[in-house]
């Protein structure tokens, strides 16, 4: 036996050890392959033999994995590569499933073809956009979604001036939501502009909303924000901060509004008047 024979025999033994099959339902087989995706998972295909015909399907697994990885195959480069690889492997794509048809005696070839295609297509996950630090408004919305069943993103409000505004979220009771505006800024001028925006929005919609339906949430702690300008906000809305998130939850869920319009943590101090 040559070293080549031994190497090939070892590879074949390893491959054959991985293959497995389970009948599922009346007419289908679940076949597990011997190759693996990058995360170590193994492609599994569904096989249906109907007389002299066989159909092999990925059962939607490939698209589901890419979807979970954040790849949208309906646009851009991912779409092009998806279509190219499907053509290259001679597959059909229908209703979210990869399919290949052939004669029953070809079942082995078709199953191997499908598992190889699934692994190759799974490589498109590398096209997933790199995750970025979400902006403050997005973090706030995710936070609110974890706390409340009803969270409307970017609700529209119209002011007395006729201007319309997209706020960050509307949260809580659907018949009487709390409108939330996130304010953030990395520099003092940016924070000033953010405050001016928040003040304008909630001044303009004054009268159409009860005070307890207007909430401004500041990124970071209130100490980062100029006290005098926060006094302006306090006149038109309740004001909370990211660092005092529990107070936000309590405020939105409360039946009666708190006395102070500043929703501070015990450790936070702010003098806005005088």
């Amino acid at each position, binding site marked *: 036996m040559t070293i080549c024979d031994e190497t090939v025999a070892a590879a074949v033994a390893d491959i054959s050890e*991985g293959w*497995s099959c*389970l009948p*599922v*339902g*009346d*007419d*289908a087989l*679940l076949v*597990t392959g011997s190759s*693996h995706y*990058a*995360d*170590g*998972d*193994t492609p*599994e295909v*569904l*096989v*249906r033999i109907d007389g002299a015909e066989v*159909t*092999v*399907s990925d*059962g*939607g*697994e490939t*698209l*589901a994995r890419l*979807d*979970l*990885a*954040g790849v949208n195959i309906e646009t851009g480069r991912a779409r092009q590569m998806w279509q190219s690889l499907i053509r290259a492997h001679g597959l059909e794509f*229908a*209703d*979210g*499933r990869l*399919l290949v048809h052939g004669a029953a005696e070809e079942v082995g070839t078709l199953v191997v073809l499908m598992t190889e295609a699934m692994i190759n297509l799974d490589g498109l996950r590398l096209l*997933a956009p*790199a*995750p*970025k*630090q*979400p902006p403050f408004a*997005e*973090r706030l919305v*995710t*936070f609110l*979604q*974890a*706390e*409340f*069943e009803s969270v409307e993103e970017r609700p529209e409000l119209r002011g007395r001036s006729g201007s319309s505004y997209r706020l960050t979220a509307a949260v809580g009771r659907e018949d009487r939501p709390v409108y939330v505006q996130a304010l953030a800024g990395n520099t003092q001028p940016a924070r000033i502009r953010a405050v001016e925006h928040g003040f304008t929005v909630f001044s303009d919609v004054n009268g159409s909303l009860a005070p307890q339906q207007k909430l401004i949430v500041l990124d970071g702690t209130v100490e980062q924000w100029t006290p005098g300008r926060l006094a302006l906000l306090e006149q038109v809305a309740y004001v909370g901060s*990211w660092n005092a*998130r529990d107070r936000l939850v309590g405020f939105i869920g409360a039946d009666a509004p708190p006395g102070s319009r500043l929703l501070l943590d015990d450790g936070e101090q702010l003098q806005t008047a005088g």
Partner: protein
Amino acid sequence: MVLTDQVVAAIMDAPTAKLELRVPLVWSSRDTTVRAEVAVHNAHGLPLRLGMQILLDKPWKISVYLMIYGGQVRRLDVNGSHRNRTDGERWVRRTHKHRFSEAHQDAEAYTPSDIPAVPFQNVAVEDYRQVLEAFCDECAITLGGSYAWQAPTMNLPAAAGPGGGGGS
């Protein structure tokens, strides 16, 4: 923003992270999958999400995951197949759970405890509830607030063949 060991450690440290599922799942469906994804309360204010995905053609194969910054901190694959490159351990249609690390990304799995078995035939909606809540228990995610089990909106075949449609 990338997932790091430090972020994972912060999330999985139950006493400080205080993970809690406070809202019901909201399901959405595509051609071959139904999926729910919800934000998870945590003391760090991290944008953490919990998801559950079911393949309609393989309703016995269920994925439940805890996700942040596009990476999966943990992913439970019920009745899935996997091989660890680290120690060679192999799962064939057997429940395993991926745990993220910077060294191995999501390629390392282990056999989780207390995840109920799901049959390959006649999967019941109750099976999905049990899997989700067992996953939460194992990840120290308490169930509170207005959380209540919400069943997936799907037609469950006893077993499905290629091309969908399912059996009976």
